[in-house]
């Protein structure tokens, strides 16, 4: 498994595997009881907690710096959102009946900001954008396959939705500015197409709208902005060894 992932330039440690297993187990076991959701939290935050306590020493100084910076970014994003939500809730007319969507949105923003900031620090914008887009494409493929396995033509048609993501990933690797503009344009298109602008309406957090915006529009916008910010030249080239140059 580790060797397979190394082909894609990712070398997860034993800690990453254990944390990933805890998260997966937690998600699966929520089908039995939502009490097991705490396992997801342990998987996400446990390694960082152990590192801060000095009981886990599996990172070098660059990784620790990237993780701390990502943690600070997550703190800023989640804090800002918490204040905005508090302001919204206290105004009276907000259309939010239950606390669950609010907490869920805070967790999603916390996780998303942390992951994105870590990836950008570790890989740089170009490779982060490519990875995000390929992941999106694969998810679309899985989604369309699960939805239309009964009909081969339908499966083919549905799979075409994944093509723009793979095409954008290709463009991001070669023409960063063009890819940046296309990513932001596609984010704006999806925001309108899926009616996500209703976050400004009378029921802002209904049907998981906030989470969809963060997890679907967020990566597209963040990758686009990162590519346009002109930091694309300092990227991790992936698994290819950087040969010494004279």
């Amino acid at each position: 498994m580790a060797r397979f992932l190394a082909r894609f330039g990712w070398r997860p440690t034993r800690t990453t595997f254990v944390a990933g297993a805890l998260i997966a187990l937690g998600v699966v076991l929520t089908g039995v009881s939502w009490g097991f959701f705490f396992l997801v939290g342990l998987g996400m935050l446990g390694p960082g907690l152990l590192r801060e306590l000095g009981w886990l020493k599996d990172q070098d100084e660059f990784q620790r710096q990237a993780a701390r910076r990502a943690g600070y970014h997550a703190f800023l994003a989640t804090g800002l959102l918490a204040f905005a939500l508090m302001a919204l809730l206290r105004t009276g007319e907000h259309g939010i009946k239950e606390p669950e969507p609010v907490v869920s949105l805070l967790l999603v923003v916390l996780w998303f900001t942390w992951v994105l900031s870590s990836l950008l620090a570790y890989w740089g914008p170009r490779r982060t954008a490519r990875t995000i887009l390929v992941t999106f494409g694969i998810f679309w493929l899985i989604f369309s396959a699960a939805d239309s396995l009964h009909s081969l033509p339908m499966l083919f048609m549905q799979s075409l939705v994944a093509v723009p993501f793979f095409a954008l990933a290709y463009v991001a690797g070669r023409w960063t500015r063009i890819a940046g503009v296309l990513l932001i344009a596609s984010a704006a298109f999806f925001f309108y197409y899926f009616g996500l602008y209703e976050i400004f309406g009378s029921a802002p957090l209904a049907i998981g709208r906030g989470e969809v915006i963060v997890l679907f529009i967020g990566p597209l916008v963040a990758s686009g902005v990162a590519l346009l910010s002109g930091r694309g030249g300092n990227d991790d080239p992936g698994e290819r060894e950087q040969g010494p140059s004279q």
Partner: protein
Amino acid sequence: MKPKYDIRNELRLYRVKAGDMTQQELADRVGATRQTIMSIEKGRYNPSVGLALRIAKVLGATIEELFQLEEEKGDRNG
């Protein structure tokens, strides 16, 4: 206006001088990851004094040979 400085490094050059040492070899010998070495070479990360000293020792160079302050272009008015 105070001059601004970048830190330029010669890690790649000294890896060649040290017998074409790969990033992974250097990383293993100084107790870091290849990603860290690569980030230092690309100027994305400035190592701590401790790591810089370990790198210098492994590559048989001094810190000054590996890392130099370079005044940022377009900001030379002091």
